């Protein structure tokens, strides 16, 4: 709970720091604030407390998910040095909104009451609408913001209607009350409960961009400023899956037989839609958007096969995915700045041609993150997939497993296109100047990906 209060206060402090003449103080301040919140979170390790009138539960699982969110946010902020040079940018507001959105994510992670879930989802979403449209003069950013906003509030409507129906059936918004209602109903809960669960699921699946609710994702991810795309595709996804895990494992585990078929069908559809469309992309950024849809599909396997292993598998996969995605977007930011086509950064695959010649480090970082996303052994992504797949085996969901393995093979094709472009194509990429801190963040993320890939046990001991 302490991180939530701290980050809310720090966000306001950052807004006031924006009045200062020197912008240089903002970035270190934002990083420091996130680190303090990270440390404060671990004060509650191994204690399980309910806060705010039993509305928020902080346990080890919630702290782990919050840690992933905070690490992702730390990396995104650390890669944001450009804003301090851009005249049009408003770094104080951006950092403040980022901190506020982390508060929303943390409420989604630890909620114990549907009111808290709703408020958390909205804090996170409204912050994201603003950040998506933060490039005010860029038509593509405007369009992305409007699409995200309209589709996001549409989905919120569904989620709210579902919550209202759940309230009608149960008479309470608390997760444990919903659970005890289902247990007391002798296997015949009211129809309102089923409808309510479905609508809440639709709303949440929209937020994590699962098919068939994924149509906004490529447009929004492509139009938003790259840095905020990185934030969206990691923090929103991690928090969304933590919220879904909480909802399904606490409240609805008793009617598993009802929802697992629906979730398994959505998983299959998401895997197919994400991976097959990613193959046809020419823009790296748009490919990353489809890749984020396909990773939502892999994470959904963990939910459809809800069991003992699901929790640790979801945490591990979110961490691996966040590390790889942020470093990939970090490289894209650097590379896209070098060339411009039609007055905007070149984000196609060809921008990466011959990157390894003059920038071996950047090429290596991107290669490792692509390998991790594709799930090649000796990277964290491999163990993430392995844990999710073994959860599916425990539940006997063999057909989903076969589909997921096939789709990982398709994934290798489009992830390796950029690796081939970097190492085997000729290009005129000059030496790219990278700030030392930026470089340090990229190296740290890559090192963590490899360490987790070699000794995944390191992480499982914490769980």
């Amino acid at each position: 709970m302490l991180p939530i209060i701290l980050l809310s206060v720090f966000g306001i402090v950052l807004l006031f720091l924006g009045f200062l003449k020197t912008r240089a103080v903002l970035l270190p301040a934002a990083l420091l604030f996130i680190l303090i919140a990270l440390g404060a979170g671990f004060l509650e390790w191994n204690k399980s407390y309910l806060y705010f009138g039993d509305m928020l539960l902080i346990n080890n699982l919630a702290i782990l998910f919050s840690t992933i969110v905070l690490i992702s946010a730390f990396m995104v902020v650390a890669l944001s040095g450009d804003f301090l040079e851009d005249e049009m940018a408003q770094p104080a507001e951006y950092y403040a909104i980022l901190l506020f959105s982390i508060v929303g994510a943390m409420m989604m992670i630890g909620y114990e009451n549907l009111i808290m879930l709703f408020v958390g989802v909205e804090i996170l979403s409204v912050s994201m609408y603003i950040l998506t449209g933060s490039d005010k003069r860029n038509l593509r950013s405007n369009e992305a913001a409007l699409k995200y906003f309209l589709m996001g509030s549409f989905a919120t409507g569904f989620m709210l209607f579902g919550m209202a129906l759940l309230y009608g059936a149960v008479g309470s918004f608390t997760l444990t009350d919903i659970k005890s209602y289902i247990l007391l109903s002798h296997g015949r809960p009211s129809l309102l409960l089923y409808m309510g669960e479905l609508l809440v699921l639709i709303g949440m699946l929209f937020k994590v961009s699962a098919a068939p609710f994924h149509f906004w994702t490529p447009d929004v991810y492509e139009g938003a400023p790259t840095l905020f795309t990185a934030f969206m595709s990691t923090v929103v996804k991690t928090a969304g899956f933590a919220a879904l895990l909480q909802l399904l494992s606490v409240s609805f585990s008793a009617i598993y037989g009802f929802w697992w078929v629906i979730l398994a069908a959505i998983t299959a559809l998401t895997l197919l839609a994400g991976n097959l469309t990613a193959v046809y992309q020419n823009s790296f950024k748009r490919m990353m958007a489809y890749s984020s849809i396909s990773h939502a599909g892999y994470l959904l396997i963990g939910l459809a096969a809800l069991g003992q292993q699901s929790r640790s598998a979801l945490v591990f996969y979110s961490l691996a995915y966040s590390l790889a995605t942020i470093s990939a977007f970090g490289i894209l930011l650097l590379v896209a700045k070098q060339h411009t086509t039609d007055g905007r950064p070149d984000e196609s695959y060809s921008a990466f041609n011959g990157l390894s010649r003059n920038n071996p480090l950047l090429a290596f970082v991107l290669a490792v993150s692509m390998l991790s996303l594709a799930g090649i052994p000796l990277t964290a992504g491999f163990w993430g997939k392995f844990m999710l797949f073994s959860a599916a085996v425990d539940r006997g969901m063999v057909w989903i497993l076969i589909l997921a393995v096939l789709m990982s093979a398709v994934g290798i094709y489009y992830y390796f296109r950029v690796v081939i472009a970097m190492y085997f194509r000729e290009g005129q990429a000059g030496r790219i100047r990278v700030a030392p801190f930026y470089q340090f963040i990229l190296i740290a993320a890559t090192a963590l990906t490899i360490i987790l890939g070699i000794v995944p046990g390191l992480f499982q001991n914490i769980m």
Partner: protein
Amino acid sequence: MQPTQAPIQIPEVIQLIDLKYYLIISTALFVIGIIGVLTRRNAIIIFMSIELMLNSVNLLLIAFSSYRSDPTGQVFVFFIMAVAAAEVAVGLAIIVMIYRNTRSIDVGLLNKLKW
């Protein structure tokens, strides 16, 4: 001379109508909202349809809350109203930003992003 009737409590007035009618009218409003979002091309009207969806949820919550004599549903309505107001602020700002750049709020004209 007839004795003056005791004033009827507000929840009782609501309960004169069967709960299922509240459910039907809320669902109808919600579906009208969905149809509005899916068929209209003007950003403001889409936005109004979304507000209609949220308000149908409010109506439903209040009805359930009164029938159960449980205040939490009404508290949730306040949360929804407050959050919807924040959303309106951000949403209208986005629409104004679009209008400044394109002189139009027709969502059909937004086609810069596609593969």
